[in-house]
């Protein structure tokens, strides 16, 4: 059905505290990790301690005699290979977690060690074919075929440059470090069904995947009999789609033991196998004219997705439409697989491009903000005609506006100085830096269902299988329904996170809000219309004469108003219900223009101080200017941006997954040596949200984390006048850069 966002918004676009906030803050909210069921068993996983080996022998006989043992699920058998330290071998369930660990210690496994590689430079030096076979040719090579692209006319453009700058930049792999680890609680029901309480970003998809797994094993498990529940979720960032190996293990163990089983990863496992954001290293050459026009961009990068596959950078060059020649070499190595992490590929691409741009600006002695303004993508006149709200139609103007706002909020004009030429002669140097980002945030191609039910007592329920990862999606749903029905947010009961509530897509690509909010708008509008058609006669009115006011319904023809409850009471024993379903295809229909869209920009400015004696970097202030189409919950958006900025700050200053070259093991699979900033490390964060209601809803989850570390890198460069090429900007790296003079 064709719907529209209200032209005058009462609740949408305002700041609303999340409706499950109190439950979360007082521990009442139950996460999957918190589920306890009668007779629940605890399971733990045995993982390979070596990075590559063939399994020679597995003896579980002693383990099965240990106190509390209940069931075992073998994932690898004798003769199989393991491909990284942390690779799954088997899982054991016991009556308590302590006993499960005892059982694990009693398992005897003999490994026949095989050659392994965990360093990209080692693999580039000599390929040892140490990874899992892939494809029909069973390819085991470490160094994959390069991904290359050359824009038309690159050679000519490269010839015409007046100034060329070459730099080497790098980002190590980092861990998602979801606070609630991966895992689930599995319980088989008397009717042969399976209920799981999963920590997942894809409630519906997890249920489907479990059904598919068991059906493939010859165990009949119709999709309709699998129920996945995720009422609250403790962080995913792209790493929690589907049941995963440990989720399937929990379900298998629960089946064998005929009891519910909880299997949540411990912290070390979480860091080793819960996914990582891949690193990227390489060279960028950037050339242009002395007036700041950049005409050629050349990059040669490599990165490792661990045992996974694929490249580790996003679009190169990033944001700016330079004529370019790019090459990227993915290198498969023997550590845990990379997984999507909050705008996969974009932080890497942004870092390479925006750092190189600042180095170019320094070489020609220009303010990098001016270089950015000079090289921004232009508004596309053809797009302006065809689809005026599309990103190509507006991005030049939008970036320019955002840069101006960010410059004003950060005091750029007063604070920027040529690199290393700030005021003062003391050891502490101050600097300011900028970076730009972009993202999609469209509706998912998969269908998202929503349902709204109005009861005769006036109570309203909104239902969907979608999940709230901490994005305040639950609050978004309540706000949309309350807006349409003239109610307050607290009047709407939101039930989400249960797979039987309909189809929904996984929360990836910032697609949840632009998928769910339109579906909810449709459902609420349909429920309102059904209410009107059911009660109109009883009110002596025509349905088309009824309209929603705040807390009331008005009969325009008779100029009479009724309270919401009076109207709903006329439903008698019936309910008024409406459903909605939204997809990307639906959003692209001309009739649905302005409901949901995609394509956002963003600008961030970092202000830092660098102690040139100790090498300590402190971020003093971050300014983040962000658009995401029509704002629904302004407070939720601001929190998303602040959270994204802080995550990006952690990428820049603290985070690094360190894998030991000699043992192939992650040496900081914990939280004491894997560093995350605390409250004392946090800057002042100024978030400026742009509200663009004419564009419709666009996702916000990923973009604000992309450009933060590039902005910080440029601010450090501005402070000390030398480039610290690699994150995290730890004191040793800063001091090394200072001592080398940035060469």
């Amino acid at each position: 059905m064709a719907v529209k966002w209200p032209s005058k918004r009462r609740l949408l676009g305002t700041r609303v505290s999340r409706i499950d906030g109190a439950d979360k803050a007082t521990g009442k909210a139950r996460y999957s990790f918190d589920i306890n069921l009668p007779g629940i068993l605890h399971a733990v996983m045995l993982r390979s301690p070596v990075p590559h080996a063939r399994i020679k022998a597995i003896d579980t006989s002693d383990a099965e005699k240990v106190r509390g043992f209940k069931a075992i699920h073998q994932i690898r058998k004798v003769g199989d290979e393991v491909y990284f330290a942390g690779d799954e071998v088997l899982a054991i369930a016991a009556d308590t977690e302590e006993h499960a660990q005892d059982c694990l210690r009693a398992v005897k496994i003999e490994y026949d060690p095989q050659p392994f590689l965990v360093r990209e430079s080692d693999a580039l030096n000599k390929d040892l074919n140490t990874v899992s076979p892939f494809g029909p040719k069973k390819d085991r090579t470490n160094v994959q075929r390069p991904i290359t692209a050359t824009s038309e006319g690159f050679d000519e453009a490269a010839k015409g440059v007046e100034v060329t700058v070459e730099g080497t930049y790098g980002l190590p792999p980092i861990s998602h470090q979801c606070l609630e680890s991966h895992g689930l609680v599995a319980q088989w029901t008397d009717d042969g069904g399976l209920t799981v309480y999963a920590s997942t970003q894809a409630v519906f998809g997890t249920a489907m995947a479990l059904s598919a797994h068991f059906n493939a094993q010859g165990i009949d498990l119709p999709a309709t009999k699998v129920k996945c529940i995720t009422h609250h979720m403790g962080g995913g960032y792209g790493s929690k789609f589907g049941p995963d190996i440990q989720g399937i293990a929990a379900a298998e163990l629960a089946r064998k033991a005929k009891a519910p089983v909880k299997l949540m990863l411990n912290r070390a496992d979480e860091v080793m196998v819960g996914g990582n954001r891949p690193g990227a290293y390489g060279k960028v050459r950037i050339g242009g004219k002395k007036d700041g026009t950049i005409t050629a961009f050349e990059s040669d990068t490599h990165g490792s997705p661990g045992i996974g596959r694929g490249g580790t950078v996003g679009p190169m060059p990033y944001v700016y439409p330079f004529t370019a020649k790019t090459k990227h070499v993915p290198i498969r190595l023997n550590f845990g697989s990379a997984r999507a992490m909050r705008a996969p590929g974009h932080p890497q691409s942004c870092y390479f491009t925006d750092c190189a741009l600042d180095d170019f600006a320094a070489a020609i002695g220009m303010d990098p903000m001016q270089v950015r303004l000079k090289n921004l993508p232009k508004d596309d006149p053809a797009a302006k005609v065809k689809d005026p709200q599309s990103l190509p139609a507006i991005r030049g103007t939008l970036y320019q506006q955002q840069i101006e706002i960010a410059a004003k909020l950060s005091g750029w004009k007063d604070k920027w100085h040529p690199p290393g030429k700030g005021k003062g002669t003391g050891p502490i140097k101050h600097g300011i830096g900028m970076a730009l980002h972009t993202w999609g945030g469209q509706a998912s191609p998969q269908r998202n269902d929503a349902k709204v039910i109005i009861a005769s007592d006036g109570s309203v329920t909104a239902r969907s299988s979608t999940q709230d990862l901490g994005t305040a999606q639950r609050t978004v749903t309540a706000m949309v329904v309350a807006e349409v029905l003239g109610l307050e947010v607290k009047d709407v009961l939101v039930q989400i996170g249960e797979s039987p509530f309909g189809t929904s897509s996984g929360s990836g690509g910032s697609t949840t809000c632009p998928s769910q909010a339109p579906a909810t708008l449709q459902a609420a509008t349909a429920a309102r219309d059904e209410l009107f058609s059911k009660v109109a006669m009883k009110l002596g009115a025509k349905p088309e004469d009824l309209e929603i006011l705040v807390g009331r319904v008005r009969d325009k023809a008779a100029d009479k108003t009724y309270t919401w409850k009076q109207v709903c009471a006329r439903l008698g024993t019936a309910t008024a219900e409406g459903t909605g379903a939204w997809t990307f295809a639906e959003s692209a229909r001309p009739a649905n223009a302005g409901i949901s869209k995609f394509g956002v920009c963003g600008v961030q400015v970092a202000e830092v101080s660098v102690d040139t004696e100790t090498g300590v970097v402190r971020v003093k202030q971050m300014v983040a200017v962000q658009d995401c189409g029509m704002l629904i919950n302004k407070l939720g958006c601001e929190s998303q941006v602040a959270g994204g900025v802080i995550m990006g700050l952690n990428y820049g200053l603290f985070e690094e997954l360190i894998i030991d070259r000699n043992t192939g093991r992650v040496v900081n699979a914990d939280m004491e040596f894997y560093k995350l900033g605390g409250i004392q490390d946090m800057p002042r964060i100024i978030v400026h949200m742009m509200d663009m209601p004419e564009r419709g809803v666009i996702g916000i989850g990923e973009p604000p984390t992309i450009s933060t570390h590039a902005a910080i890198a440029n601010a450090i460069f501005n402070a000390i006048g030398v480039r610290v090429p690699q994150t995290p900007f730890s004191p040793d790296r800063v001091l090394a850069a200072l001592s080398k003079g940035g060469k």
Partner: protein
Amino acid sequence: MDDRKDNCQEKGGTAPLAPPGNGPGLSRRDFLRGSGAAAAATALAEAPIPEAEAQETKKADKAVGIGPGSVKLTLTVNDTKMTASVEPRVTLLDALRNYLDVTGCKRVCDRGTCGACTVMVDGNPIYSCTMLALEAEGKKIRTAESLVDGGKLDAVPAAFVACDAQQCGFCTPGFVVATGPCSTRTPRRRPPRSSEDWPGTSAVAAPTSRCAVPSSNWSSRVPANPNPQRSDPWQ
């Protein structure tokens, strides 16, 4: 296995699945009642150890045990006496979460770094993963769950909600518990507005948050001493 089956039958079938609401689908009472036989071996207050559990213990004795067996543990959690049978190696955090179904304290790092498991023990914030459950016997334990009274939120969690100082919220109960004494014991000091103000030694310096929104939102918006009429709610 059989013990558990009997136990389920006693209850009249398996545990109910979650109701359509957003609740956990199982009350604490249901959990405690149902879990006597096998894993959790918990019981309310002074209830005697059920027969089934005694049998389980007997059977278990024949298996290879590692370390000393279970002992009876009584903890005072949020003014309620709770009893469980736990091995001496069980931490306070695991006893609360796995044996007593008090799950507001979260397990994240499990080695005294992150602060998600912070509870108050005799009025002092403690990382419950660093304390053995048996050490906490006879002490007053308070968790984030105690900060709501008949629907009325304590000032600290209320400020977290109002400022939206949480996203996924998994670190929040630990943050809230750590914040309580910080703001009530030093009533005149305003909370830090940024790293500039913060000496780095206080109760809330340590908690780790993945999005750290508590640090940005909380520090700039939570009022100092949000609850002046109470001297120290944690005592």
